[in-house]
């Protein structure tokens, strides 16, 4: 388990990470989301002691990173696949990493095999594509068979097959009971592999919850109704204050009432329904909505982090409903 508490990092006068606290639990993939420049990478560097945090601490199963004697056995991290010397071969790159933690040098070939790079093990890294470097980076993460895995944008530069592969690997690692924290801006990917989310904006925590809760809270929700006598329903619903979007002659999308409300109403008017279903937006919609609010926060509407943020969200949701 990773616990981050009160993490703060300033670059000059700019606050990159502000009093950030969250927990990452074992046995599931936790997605680390935030717009560009929100402080995800800085947070990860601070967690690993690479950037010196101005305040706060990160504990890995109760131990700060700097106190780990052989950290690769505990935490595998991939911050940037480009952090390699272009003149070295993949095998030699992994060998020096392995040697630094007393791992046998043959581990280099083993993990290269795992990530499917055996054939290119002896090639110099300047010949590697970004996708191959990502695979190499993941090989580096696996070297010490760590219990905790931290990855910054691992799907960057991968082709669809590679993205699917990295997703499968991360889900597999989580199923093995490992703690997996992965940042990504590919939200559709995140929704496929992450169970839990940590969302930040402007260096502040916006939300820590499950993906389902997040979409529930921030995503767009509506009821889809299909009926041959849809016009009757529209009239009745609008009288009750619902916002209606006409999809086609027999289908409408209703925002406001629940499926129960619509069903009761249809029964009262004797309208036959062909479809009555709950619909919700994607994680991407939810993310954009949640982080758009951070911009409001940025412009000075909010004074504290979480509580006031929720108010802002509710306000926003009402705005969106009214507009559509």
């Amino acid at each position, binding site marked *: 388990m990773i616990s981050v508490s009160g993490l703060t990092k300033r670059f000059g006068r700019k606050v990159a990470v502000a009093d950030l606290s969250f927990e990452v639990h074992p046995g599931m993939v936790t997605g680390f989301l935030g717009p560009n420049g929100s402080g995800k990478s800085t947070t990860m560097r601070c967690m690993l002691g*690479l950037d010196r945090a101005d305040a706060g601490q990160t504990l890995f199963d109760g131990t700060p990173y700097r106190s780990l004697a052989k950290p690769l056995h505990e935490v595998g991290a991939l911050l940037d696949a480009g*952090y390699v010397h272009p003149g070295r071969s993949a095998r030699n790159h992994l060998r020096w990493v392995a040697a630094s933690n007393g791992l046998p040098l043959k581990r280099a070939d083993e993990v290269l095999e795992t990530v499917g790079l055996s054939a290119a093990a002896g090639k110099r890294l300047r010949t590697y594509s970004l996708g191959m470097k990502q695979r190499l980076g993941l090989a*580096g993460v696996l070297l010490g068979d760590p219990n905790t895995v931290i990855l910054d944008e691992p799907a960057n530069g991968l082709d669809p097959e590679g993205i699917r592969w990295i997703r499968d690997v991360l889900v597999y690692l989580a199923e093995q009971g490992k703690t997996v924290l992965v940042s990504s801006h590919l939200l559709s990917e995140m929704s496929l592999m992450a169970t839990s989310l940590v969302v930040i904006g402007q260096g502040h925590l916006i939300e820590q919850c499950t993906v389902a809760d997040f979409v529930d809270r921030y995503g767009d929700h509506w009821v889809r109704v299909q009926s041959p006598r849809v016009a009757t329903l529209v009239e009745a619903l609008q009288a009750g204050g619902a916002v209606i979007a006409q999809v086609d002659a027999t289908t409408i999308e209703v925002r406001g009432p629940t499926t129960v409300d619509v069903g009761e109403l249809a029964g009262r008017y004797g309208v036959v329904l062909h479809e009555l279903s709950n619909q919700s937006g994607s994680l991407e919609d939810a993310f954009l909505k949640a982080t758009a609010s951070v911009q409001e926060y940025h412009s000075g509407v909010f004074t504290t982090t979480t509580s006031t943020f929720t108010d802002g969200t509710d306000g926003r949701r009402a705005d969106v409903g009214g507009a559509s």
Partner: protein
Amino acid sequence: MINVLRSEWIKLRTIRMNLVLVVIAVAFPLIVSVLIAALNNNDEMNARDLLNAVQISSVVTAMLLGVIGAATITGEFGFGTIRTTFAATPKRMRVIIGKAIITVSLAMVVEGLVVLLSYNVGAAILTSRDRRIDLVDAPSGRPAIAGVILFAAIVALLGFGLGLLIRNTPTAVAILILWPLVVESIIGGILSAAGVDQPFKWLPYNAGISMANPDSFEGGLGRVGSGLYFFAVAGAITVFGALLTNRRDA
């Protein structure tokens, strides 16, 4: 610590540029002393003259070893591998000490090899040309040989220290090379003109080179004193660089 040393050794020997630099560092003084021994027609050429040539040409070796020393750390900052390094070994001082040990050891081994090869090959050529060559003729010969080796070790340390401080390969290497060639000459000249007695003894590189002087010399800081002074300067830069690196963001 053993793990760090192994890791740093793998890093050092898996970069082709380092191999190229070592080959040049060994070959250059060797070629110079072969040419001097083979082409010199002066019947009076003795061990001291040969040592002089070895000492002068091995300054180039020391510089190249200093470049390796600088690049061993600036390369990591340049390519970002320092983050992988410090993530694997979060106690940064271990990494820094490990790198310093590997760099200085390599310098001593290579420079030792250079002196051994270039002196003995030169001597062998001269002997085959019926010139009597014997270290006994140069009373300061052995201390000077030790001085050459230590000089290279300190220049390598200086390169490493500058690299820690500056984090940028071209800048660190430029300072390493321009310092003795330009900066010390100018400062020494100015001090001389200002009437300072023996100004060069306080210029670190000059002090280092006099440690490797085959002539026994009087005045100045003495052979040991000059060497210690040069070492103190290189050591201070390295310690300062190490403290900064330990504190800064990687």
